[in-house]
């Protein structure tokens, strides 16, 4: 089975549309919204309650007068849902505060004493540990490369908006469905969506990371300061230094990204995902490391990469070298890495061009990817076990409705979209009509 949504390839007119839509992107989704959708949309609620993005909403209304009646009803509903608050005196707030403050002061005094005692104990423990295990540790140390993988804590979780967090903590919301970021080689400037330029400064000497956080339903293209290109897929986070000043260029990934690494022999590029570390020298590859998936995939298209995983003691055990057109699957439970040859590795990177390509895949696997891309939830009828393997190519620039319609042409499914939830059931075929 092979199908194709018959659509022309993407045109390069992105720049023009970007110029037209500045500041607030009137999201197309609103045009298809029902009254119920509006009442549940947080942006809508914020507008009704306290006039947030007033002008943008008014211009949306102005441009689409047919939305007026829906919005009017939705507004009434949201307004009726306001609760009335109980009054509390300022004095009462202050009296609780004074008790907390007192506790804080007493606690701080106690902590200092405790701290010193704890420190003494800690040093004693370290001393004993060194005596006992010193020989074993040195054995490992001299035998192998010693490396404990650094962990990155992302400072923000997913929300409805895509965002860029600059070193220093400034947050910038990325309004476009597909945002575009370019970090200047100087490490002081970033260009967003090819039109707004933001200067920033890395103040602290600790090398702080820039972070890009892309929720489900969005994507981002990022040019790092060393010339490396990164395509960040829906539901993913990437952290990287704004300027690569260390011996290695290290970035942190959660989710899926496709990399085209700029070659620098003396400064290897390392991608840290939760349990693996992937070292590369100028190359093209795709990594998929979603927290909800059982496996972490790395697919190499060009160049060479090595994958290493830590053992239980944080000592690097295996270093696996990938050749072009090979895929490494790391299973999070068994901690095993499986290598396989991929004759058509392009399949894995089609999403960077807005296509989603798959071959002989289970319907469930296809749906999981669509779930991330469109930020919806599929609910399969429990009595329906799709067993068919399907192949094909979907245009992700289409609406979910259209993509599912294309999918239902080849897979025996019926679907019903309802408020971010899509019910999938087995297709009922040709019920003969009685006369």
């Amino acid at each position: 089975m092979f199908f194709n949504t018959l659509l022309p390839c993407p045109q390069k007119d992105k720049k023009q549309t970007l110029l037209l839509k500045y500041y607030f992107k009137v999201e197309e989704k609103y045009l298809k919204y029902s009254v119920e959708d509006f009442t549940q949309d947080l942006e809508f609620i914020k507008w009704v309650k306290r006039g947030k993005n007033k002008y943008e909403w008014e211009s949306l209304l102005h441009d689409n007068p047919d939305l007026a009646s829906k919005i009017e009803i939705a507004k009434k509903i949201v307004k009726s849902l306001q609760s009335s608050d109980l009054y509390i005196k300022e004095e009462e707030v202050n009296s609780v505060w004074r008790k907390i403050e007192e506790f804080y002061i007493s606690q701080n005094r106690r902590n200092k004493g405790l701290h010193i005692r704890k420190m003494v104990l800690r040093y004693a423990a370290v001393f004993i540990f060194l005596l006992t295990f010193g020989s074993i540790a040195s054995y490992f140390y001299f035998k192998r490369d010693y490396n404990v993988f650094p962990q990155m804590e992302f400072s923000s979780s997913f929300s409805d908006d895509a965002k860029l967090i600059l070193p220093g903590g400034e947050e910038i919301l990325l309004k476009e469905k597909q945002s575009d970021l370019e970090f200047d080689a100087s490490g002081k400037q970033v260009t967003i969506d090819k039109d707004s330029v933001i200067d920033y400064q890395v103040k602290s000497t600790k090398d702080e990371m820039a972070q890009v956080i892309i929720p489900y339903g969005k994507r981002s293209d990022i040019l790092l300061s060393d010339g490396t290109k990164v395509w960040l897929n829906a539901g993913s986070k990437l952290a990287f230094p704004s300027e690569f000043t260390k011996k290695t260029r290290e970035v942190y990934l959660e989710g899926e990204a496709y990399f085209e690494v700029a070659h620098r022999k003396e400064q290897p590029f390392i991608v840290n995902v939760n349990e693996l570390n992937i070292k590369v020298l100028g190359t093209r590859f795709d990594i998929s490391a979603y927290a909800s998936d059982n496996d972490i995939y790395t697919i190499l298209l060009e160049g060479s990469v090595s994958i290493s995983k830590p053992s239980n003691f944080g000592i690097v055990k295996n270093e696996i070298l990938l050749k072009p057109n090979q895929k490494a699957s790391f299973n999070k439970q068994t901690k095993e890495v499986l290598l396989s040859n991929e004759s058509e590795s392009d399949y894995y990177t089609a999403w960077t061009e807005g296509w989603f390509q798959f071959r002989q895949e289970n319907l469930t696997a296809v749906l999981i990817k669509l779930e991330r891309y469109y930020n919806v939830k599929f609910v399969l009828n429990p009595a329906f076990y799709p067993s068919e393997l399907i192949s094909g190519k979907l245009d992700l620039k289409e609406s979910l409705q259209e993509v599912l319609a294309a999918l239902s042409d080849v897979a025996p499914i019926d679907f019903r979209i309802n408020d971010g939830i899509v019910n999938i059931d087995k297709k009922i075929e040709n019920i003969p009509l009685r006369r």
Partner: protein
Amino acid sequence: MNSDYKIWEAFKDGDKSALSSIYFKHFHSMFQYGIRIKEDPDFVKDCIHDVFLKLIKAGKRLNSTDNIRFYLFKALKNTIYKRLEKEKKVQLTIDLNFKTSFVLEEKVLSQEKLTEHEKALADALSHLSSRQREIIYLRYECEMDYSQICDIMKIKNDSARKLVFRAIKTLRRVIKVQKDTSLLLFLGIF
């Protein structure tokens, strides 16, 4: 700019100004939320006090967060439940009633003049369940994400959406009916 994350980290490090800014910024919303779980202002104030003492004690051991209010709401709800369990010496197996009154309902009680329309809405609102009230409070008053709401209410995402959706549908029906009758009236005149 995510000031929440930074303030929280400073608070964990024992910074007093971070503590006071968190307290004064969030006391009001914590109180309003708490009073809806247990209608006893003194009790809720004590619980807020306890939450802050626990946080100060935990200090560096606290998790990071970029949404302080969400963190505090969760902590407050836990504290209220634990304290009630202790007082009653039983485990609360069911959720407490979440009591929030909508502005419209209050107006009915205080016998303010309302249009037919508002009366009908108030009536529809009065039929909302306790869970629906809690979720509506968190969504419409506190503007929380569904993921946060689910975390606080310990429910699944789709059931959260369903709860809201049903409430909205009821209200929608009222508004629709109201519209139809006014149209009929209108026709009747001519």
